[in-house]
């Protein structure tokens, strides 16, 4: 590790050590490049590892366990005296994060990748100034600075929680308002509901999870509504005023404004790329009006020796997309002929039940005016779903009518996050319905649902009866 002031030269510098940056750095090192990583936080791992995917999933796991225990009475299992110690849970989560972050650090060190601490800003197209002193001259650079949470407009009290604050699990409020019905708001809202808070969700748009297909979202909303105090769509937060250690929130719905009191308010209204304060104005790197860096298929910016990956470049702000781009950028720097030409970036929402999809959605097909063949299979017809007592859900396969090529997969149900990987593989491979239906899926598992959905699309299903 390199600390403090230095003036150094390096072949490649990677700014940021999130799932994009650290993967790129490791790959570059393996390809024989001299690499340096600049990280402004104390630990490597980025938002995903430190205050995003990883801590949220360890919290969600605990809540799902407790919910499963509560729902087990119908199976003849009664648990008494169960309580959640949120301090213990916080320690557990911190431990998970510390282990993984330490792992990333070790991986970097073992490959001889130096980590420089501080904020990096471009001085020109070939050097970075590190806050706190020092400069790094580079031949090539990868910008992997990630994204930050969007804030509410100025004038609204900023002591409300961000998702990072919520993940710290400092307290369990009596009531919590989640502003934003996207995946972060819903996941964290369910965590706090599970911890005992009375949770309400307010969404500006008419539906929760605007990007996802309605049929998937409807199944999830029906289930999670049982755990939430209120779900307010088509509603606008007009004002948040601190009062009595909590907040008075004015919410406008259908022209009427109502004031409600909440102990805490969590704002989860999206993220924006961290491209404002990194000195891009001293380079020819092009940034659009949303702060997104323009890149080509190899993740190169307008300056061919500067790359941008992950949340700062176009596409969904997802760790797995950033990691793949990190590999593409690293291999491009090493002179390989590579391209980020992925067709399926799986989207996953860790609600209960989970939602996942990849490739084409029905919404998108409709927007494009494209006719698709949709095969839907309800989990209620699946043996394993019955056995585990989770029949709420469905799997659907979108295929091209002329060719049976699989264009999209959507899932809502238990383990949707795991099941979507097969859909992503099918789409990337250019698989047809027959490739799915003629692959033996283990019985009795939830994975059979994807095969059955393909059977539905192909018109060869036997486990459902279709009235003709």
């Amino acid at each position, binding site marked *: 590790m390199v600390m403090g002031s230095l003036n150094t030269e390096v072949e490649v510098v990677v700014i940021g050590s999130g799932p994009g940056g650290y993967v790129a750095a490791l790959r570059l090192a393996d390809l024989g490049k001299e690499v340096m990583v600049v990280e402004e936080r104390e630990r490597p791992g980025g938002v995903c590892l430190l205050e995003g995917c990883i801590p949220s999933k360890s919290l969600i796991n605990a809540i799902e366990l407790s919910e499963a225990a509560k729902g087990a009475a119908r199976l003849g299992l009664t648990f008494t005296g169960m309580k959640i110690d949120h301090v213990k849970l916080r320690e557990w989560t911190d431990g998970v994060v510390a282990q993984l972050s330490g792992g990333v650090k070790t991986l970097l060190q073992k490959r001889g990748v130096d980590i420089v601490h501080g904020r990096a800003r471009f001085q020109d197209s070939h050097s970075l100034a590190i806050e706190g002193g020092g400069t790094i001259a580079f031949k090539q650079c990868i910008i992997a600075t990630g994204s930050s949470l969007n804030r509410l407009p100025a004038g609204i009290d900023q002591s409300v929680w961000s998702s990072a604050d919520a993940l710290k699990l400092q307290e369990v409020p009596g009531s919590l308002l989640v502003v934003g019905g996207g995946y972060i708001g819903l996941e964290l809202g369910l965590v706090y509901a599970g911890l005992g808070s009375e949770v309400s969700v307010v969404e500006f748009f008419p539906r929760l999870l605007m*990007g996802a297909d309605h049929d998937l979202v409807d199944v999830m909303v029906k289930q999670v509504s049982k755990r939430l105090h209120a779900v307010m769509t088509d509603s606008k937060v007009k004002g948040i005023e601190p009062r009595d250690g909590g907040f008075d929130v004015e919410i406008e719905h259908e022209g009427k404004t109502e004031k409600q009191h909440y102990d805490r308010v969590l704002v989860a209204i999206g993220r924006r790329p961290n491209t404002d304060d990194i000195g891009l104005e001293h380079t020819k790197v092009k940034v659009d009006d949303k702060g997104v860096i323009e890149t080509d298929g190899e993740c190169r910016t307008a300056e061919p020796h500067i790359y941008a990956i992950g949340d700062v470049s*176009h*596409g*969904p*702000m*997802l760790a797995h997309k950033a990691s793949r781009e990190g590999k593409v950028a690293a291999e491009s720097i090493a002179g390989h*002929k*590579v*391209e980020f*030409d*992925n*067709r*399926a*970036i799986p*989207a996953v929402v860790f609600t209960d039940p989970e939602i996942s999809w*990849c*490739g*084409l*959605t029905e919404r*998108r*097909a409709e927007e*494009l*005016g*494209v006719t*698709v063949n949709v095969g839907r299979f309800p989990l209620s017809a699946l043996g394993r779903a019955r056995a585990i007592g989770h029949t709420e859900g469905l799997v659907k396969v979108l295929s*091209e009518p*002329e*060719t*049976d*090529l699989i*264009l*999209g997969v959507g899932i809502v149900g238990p383990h949707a996050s795991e099941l979507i990987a097969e859909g992503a593989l099918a*789409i*990337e*491979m*250019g698989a*047809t319905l*027959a*490739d799915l239906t003629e692959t033996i899926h283990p019985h009795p598992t939830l994975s059979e649902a994807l095969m059955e959905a393909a059977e539905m699309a192909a018109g060869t299903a036997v486990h459902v009866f279709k009235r003709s």
Partner: protein
Amino acid sequence: MTQPNSTVSGRPVPAAPATRRLARELGVDLTLVPGTGPGGRVTPADVQAFLAGGALNVQSVQSATPAPIAAAGLAVEGTTRLAAAASAIPFLDLEPLPDFSLQGPVEVEPLRSIRRKVARKMVTSMILVPHVAHMDDADVTELEEFRLKMKARRDGEPGGKLTLLSFVIRAITAGLRAAPAFNASLDPFREEIVYKKYYNIGFAADTGKGLVVPVIRGTDVKSIREISREIEEKAALAREGKLPLEDMQGGTFTITNVGPLGGTALIPTINYPEVAILGMGRVQEKPVVRDGQIVIRKILPLTLAFDHRVADGADAARFVGELVRNLSDPNLLLLDT
């Protein structure tokens, strides 16, 4: 969240990531590769096949492009096909031709039949094969004297025309037996050279409808008279457009004889996948120096174009040198071949 690369209008070509990587590394544009897998899926073999012939054989690419791709607005037409060829070969920059009718009256004839076949063969050969041309002059004074004497005696009989070409075929066959590299084919995919132990010599014939190359089989076991008779028969059939397909196939070496039409020298294009082609210029009486004296001799200019992947300049010099010696002395030709 948006899903890049996943739209149906202009949806991506179905191909596995490993296939896409292969195509990228080979510089092949996947949208132009006809997929043979289910749903038009492109396989690694399809990419290889396209690289072997597709980029050059653009016409067949167009017809073989799966309908859904065309329907998705990726119709493979005109400039796109040019782009295919260009993308396969670095620095090859093919642009659509200008509208010549803006400059003056033109007549447009579609490229069909023989003309199109010739075009494909020649482009394939010229792009794929590193050509080298080796030139020499054969003094055929004695051979011509002997040939005309024999011809006078046999005139009117089948094969009695005893053209110079039939003697050259005989001499070439002898040369090929001694230098197998010129009777071979290079397989770039298997990375093998196939030496052929049979001798089928093609000769370029001008049919009035275009170039046809009839093939004389087994020239190592045929007499000059038999060869001469076959040349007469096959050239006549070719001119009538009645030459059976099998008589145009299986050649191992080609001779193009533009001499009777004139020309001091020519650089022929190899009849791919053969390794070499011999061009014969016009036999002319020329002043040459023999033993310090200027004498008038009948000179046949020869050019051997060969595939430098298979043979080198020295091989060609030896091969042509031997050919020139054999043609300069009919006794040698008849005795040794």
